[in-house]
């Protein structure tokens, strides 16, 4: 049961976006992209362009909302913030991921009794 790689990537990207917004508060697209790159330790050389469709999807699903504002450098930018539904979704997904990794860890660790 191999899920489509693109879908998995989009799923993790979405989760990372939500977490970023929770940690840093409202942020524009460029900021989110840099933060994700930073946090993942530059392992993910993410193509910044892929972020925008993902942001749109999250917005359509109601997990984030957007608003034009002004950045620190007095530049006009679109800011995204987490909604309440987004907060709940983040909790849910984070929990799912932790469960998955825990189960897999048990599987993939060599059997002590072997």
């Amino acid at each position, binding site marked *: 049961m191999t899920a489509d790689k693109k879908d998995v990537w989009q799923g993790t990207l979405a989760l990372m976006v939500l977490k970023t917004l929770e940690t840093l508060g409202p942020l*524009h697209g460029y900021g989110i992209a840099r933060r994700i790159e930073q946090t993942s330790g530059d392992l993910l050389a993410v193509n910044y362009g892929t972020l925008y469709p993902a942001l*749109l999807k999250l917005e*359509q*699903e109601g997990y984030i909302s957007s608003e034009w504002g002004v950045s620190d450098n007095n530049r006009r930018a679109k800011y995204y913030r987490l909604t309440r539904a987004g907060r709940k979704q983040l909790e849910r997904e984070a929990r799912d991921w932790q469960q998955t990794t825990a189960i897999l860890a048990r599987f993939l660790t060599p059997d002590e009794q072997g």
Partner: protein
Amino acid sequence: MSTLRAWLLRVGGLFGKERRDRDLADEMESHLQMHIEDNLREGMSPGEARRQALIKLGGVEQTKENYRERRGISWVETLLQDVRFGLRMLRKNPGFTAVAVITLALGIGANTAVFSVMNALFLHPPGIRHPDRLVALRVKYDKLGLKSIVVSAPDFAQVRDSKKIFAAAAIVNTDNDFNYTADAFPERLKGAEVSSGWFDVLEAKPILGRVFAPEEDQPNANHEVVLAYGAWLRWFGANRNVVGRQIQLNEESYKIIGVMGPEFHWPDPQTDLWAPLGLPPGDFDINNTFNEDYVALARLQPGISFAQANAYTQILANRVIENPAASFAKNAGWGMFLTPLMDFVFGDLRAPVLILTGAVALVLLIACANIAGLLLAKGAGRSKEVAVRAALGASRARLIVQALSENAVLGVTGILLGFFVADYGIKALLIATPKLLLPGAAVHLDGYVLLFTAVIGIVAVLFFGVIAAWHLSRIDPYNALQESGRSATGSRGRQQFRSFLVVGEMALGLVLLVGTGLLLKSLARIGEVNPGFQPHGVMTAGLALPQSQYNTPQKQRAFFSGVLDHLSHTSGITAVGAGFPLPFSGGNNSASFQIEGRPAAPGSPGPHGDNRVVTGGYFTALGIPILRGRIFTDADRLGSEPVAVIDENLAVQYWPNQDPIGQKIRNGGTNTKNLWATIVGVVGHIRFNRLAGEESSSGGTQSSAKGAYYFSLYQQSAPYGFFVAKTNGDPAALAGYIREAVRDVDANQPVHDLNTMDSLIANSLGPQRFATTLLAVFASLAILLAAIGLYGLMSYSVTQRTNEIGIRMALGAQRAEVLRMVLRQGATIAFAGVVAGVIVGLVLTRLMQSLLYGVSAADPLSFAGAAVLLVLVALIACYIPARKAMRVDPMVALRYE
């Protein structure tokens, strides 16, 4: 929930594209600027900063594209885009658009028109809720050659009482018309006398008042009528208070108890009112089982199949003939059976309508092939564009879908226009066909017809769209982009394919032409059949004498002889007579008779023949030849010796070795009280209702060789009759004289059904005429379309070969040679079409055999004639392109790429 929200927003994303596009562009620009600033702060040069930022962002267009896909519903947007593009293309090529749309409209319109006829007759007849649950009860006498005739009251009662099988049953007597006197002039209303279950069987509800109750279906209680919608409008001004009103019918008072809706007019579209049949209980006596007079219908109980009901009916019949008193019936091979009602009413038309359905399908096929050809030609001009699309990554499926969406616009326009064509076509059809042909059928465009039209429109678009698109998508982008003018291999393949299409069109056109030829020949053959009498110059008129006033044979005789006397003294009328039934007006009475001194052998049904009651003038006016002895004179009246005249067939059948003159016959069975009548003459046998094939009799069919015997009108009871008057001039002029003569004798009797004998015979050919006319129209349409297709192909070919023609001419070819070259190409296609058409035609015309008379389905003359016509049309179609080829100026052509 979030997915739903997402989807709804995506639908919304179909709108406001420009604003959102700008939004995104702004956002991405702002993103870039921020990144560039960061890069500058890190120490990069402005150029490097920008470059790095752009690289990191990735493909801007790609991002925008992904974003856009996410934002809306991409396939809908693409579809709309394709449709918009298609509209633009059509506007830019008005010539192509006009031809394509009109071709499609004609093809679709013809199919819609024929389908609506089929729908109204067989599938969803108006005014009937469940046509497949309705059956007609029929009687047959196998040994007498009577295959399917009306039933008797006891037969009907058996069916009516079998409640488990039949939910409702009813009988109708349509011989009764009513003289309605409200003002000075009596009007003749067409009436149907029905048993009380009539409306129940057909599941029809009145719009005003009510219908008959069983108690009202009695001999004394039956002075009530239900009006038909048309009569209510015409004679009573749609007055809603008409229920309960008394009116005068046949000099008696009747009460109106209800009005039916506009859709209901069974048994006949001209029915003006219904009255209860009011049969006395005695009529249902078992001894009356073999006096058949009525058409009987029934509705099956839900869950009972037709086969079950039919089997049950036969069991009922078997029980009847087990009775020793029914020995005659048993000997005659009597039986009862069921026919589905729609077959019974429209059975004659089933074959013609089916054939026409096939014909219009062929026409549509030709139309689609034409449009496909046009699209291929147009597509040739767009090959570069398609190549670019393919090179940019469009899959074949995508190209096909795009082509189909463009053609969808064409299709929708064609469908809409097709409706108009069908509407006018049907109106024209109804005007052209005699009313007798489509009884009970109101052909109009209802929901099923619309659905059918939409479906075939879609199928047609798919058909020609896919053909064209598939062919276009086979373009090899590399070659196409390099293509400089005409030398690409793709275009030759396309040309060949188009030729193939045109050959197919010609073949189908030939098939339709052959079909038309066969029907025309068949019609001509039938027309040549000698009916056995002289119909030309004969005018006929019918009337019924109301019982209240003419209740004795003497009064009836006085009326008839009064009118005949009057008419015989009118100048211009060379002969006049009266009697019933009248040839070619749907009547014929089959009856058993006895021959004196020749009792029927046990086990044999006895002599049987067609019984007619006439004056001597009937024979003279109709020109029925007198072979032996004499015909009736005024001396043969009540009180003088009863006489009879028989026809040749009866004479040969029952008196093969002796002179029938002097023999005595009488109507009825052994216990009859009828007097013996002496045969005084033998006349020729005549065709009575059908020129060809089986005869009709008693509402059904019988062998055409059955003999007839005539009694004198003045020696029988004659409550109704027909006048026949012969003139050497135009018979239509006699109508006035007949009316006048009747009015002089009794001003209260309206004359009805004034028809010339010729028109009655012509009407009997209704179904064949109908099929032939329509097939001719469709065949012409098909040939026209095929010719257009050939013209388009040749025209295009000449344009393609302009270069080549120029070279040939420069090298010394004469114009005549060029002409021959073009014509040869056209002729090849035409001949190929003829050959293919003949092969297909030989197979398909077999299906028409049932409509043909005296003509074989493989009639060589028809095939040859059609082939010649087709080739001629093809040559005409090639004429203009050929002339264009001849006029090519080599100097211009050689420079033409």
